[in-house]
């Protein structure tokens, strides 16, 4: 979603951003939560899940409720959470990709299965993963590896591949799914060439010694205009 420019901003603010509309949206979230909390208590007492929410669509629901709902359906148990992500330069990928795998590293990824989990250099070293390139480079370069258990396999095996023992690791360029636009090349034609700023490159008028220059020129001008007349002939 991209709300671009003053016209779109004004129209959104006038239609969808008024205090009453915003307050209504918050009230809907509150109502859902109140119902969900009551449902949890009832479910605990009755021994079965109870959903008191009127609508099943929870686009603005909290992450907590999303986790609960995904955990309750065995077919899609933690499908998102099962994807292990590692941010590494593609050029650093060893020829034998399996060498990136080791138990410590896998456990670390499972403990914290965030998509763009970043590791410190020392941490990678400790995990036995080559970490020659600093993390700054990971962010700036377009060379990433996504380490993923493909969702197709995960759904086919009904969670079998979700266990850390059977990971079918594939290395996919992140550009396939997520990408960081190379903005410099796209926006600045001059990034291709043009070595200097332009005709005024290096011109620092405020650093120029204007005072001695004016005094010197003034001296000569004064000497010419007010000096003794040059005898003619």
């Amino acid at each position, binding site marked *: *979603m*991209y*709300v*671009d*420019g*003053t*016209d*779109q*901003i*004004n*129209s*959104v*603010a006038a*239609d*969808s*951003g*008024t*205090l009453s*509309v*915003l307050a209504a*949206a*918050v*009230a809907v*979230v*509150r109502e859902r*939560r*109140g*119902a969900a909390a009551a449902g949890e*208590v009832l479910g605990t*007492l009755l021994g079965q899940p109870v959903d008191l929410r009127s609508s099943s669509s929870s*686009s*603005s629901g*909290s*992450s*907590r409720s*999303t986790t609960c709902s995904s955990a309750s359906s065995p077919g899609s148990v933690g499908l998102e959470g099962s994807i292990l992500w590692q941010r590494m330069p593609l050029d650093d990928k060893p020829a034998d990709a399996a060498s990136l795998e080791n138990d410590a590293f896998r456990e670390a990824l499972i403990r914290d299965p*965030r*998509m*763009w989990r970043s590791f410190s250099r020392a941490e990678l070293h400790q995990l036995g993963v080559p970490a020659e390139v600093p993390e700054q480079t990971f962010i700036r370069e377009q060379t990433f590896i996504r380490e993923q258990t493909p969702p197709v396999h995960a759904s086919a095996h009904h969670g079998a591949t979700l266990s850390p023992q059977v990971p079918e690791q594939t290395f996919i360029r992140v550009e396939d799914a*997520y*990408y*960081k*636009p190379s903005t*410099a090349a*796209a*926006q600045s*034609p*001059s990034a*291709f*060439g*043009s*070595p*200097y*700023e*332009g*005709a*005024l*490159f290096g*011109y*620092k008028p405020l650093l120029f010694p204007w005072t001695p220059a004016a005094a010197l020129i003034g001296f000569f001008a004064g000497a010419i205009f007010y000096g003794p007349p040059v005898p003619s002939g």
Partner: protein
Amino acid sequence: MLLILLSMLDTVQPASLVRPRYAVFGGSGFIGSRVCKALVEAGCSVASISRTGKCPEWAAEEPWSAQVNWLAADMLSPPAQLAAELGAIDGAVSCVGNMRPSPTWRDFFGLHWDYESLTRENGLVTWRICESARAAGASRMVVLSVSSSKKWAFGGALMGYIDGKLEAEAAGRCLFGDEHVAVVGPSLVLGGGRFAGLLRPYAAICDSAPIRAQTRFFKALKSGASSGYAPQDTVNEVALTPPAAVDAVARTVCACLLETIPASRLASFKEQQRAEDQIRDLLKEREAAGACEEIATERSTERADPAYGLVPPRRPGHIPSTLTLCWLRVIDPRLGR
């Protein structure tokens, strides 16, 4: 059994108390503080995270500011640490940004912007913010960026700012996915205490029919004829773009965060965006083609120059501004093409 059930239900928090909690990064700033205000007034629980961790002066006496949790934190600190300070949240807004010039003295009139620091403070910081928000459990993210016309028109000195903002948008999309991130791109933002008297006359001028018409005319002209270097980029798309009121921007951010914008309106926005992008893509292609020609000419000159070895090395990332290129054209029509 029924009595036990009823007594347990009494312990459930009433719906009015389960308020959604949102984090506003850069909440002490010009736009961030207004976002905090709008969210509090809508009934949300708000945490503001900024370097100072203080309520802005203009809001110190306002009743809503007492309901905001003002936190001081370094945005570049590890995401897990920041998330722990923040606590559980439902969504987050990134209002951080910096386009201040570098304090050091350099080049023409000494005024310049440092590319590295601008990309770091607009891009990397937002990466960290998104990571922290995600670690704190946020399911929705709103990134405050710039309008596409600014992205297109700003070049040269402010390239770092634009690149940083694009990086910030990419961070949101990568970490939250396209469905759960919203980008708000204002142009010039006025109102509040900032040039309070300027907003109305300036907006009236920019919104007037002749100005709108000539902006459209030049856009059409550019799409057909210009090479993209022309100065009307700056004149029309920066100076003559109507400014946005800060309260409108804040309310739009809240609307994106609380997802109150109807789908039909979003579809029309996408359609407009596509039309704009078509023109810009065309111009980018022409620029790239022109730049390739420039490189070819330059390289052939370098090869022919016997003193090539004495030429100082090229400075990568040093980008001439559009204005400089125009000056070059004035000085010598062969240059700057």
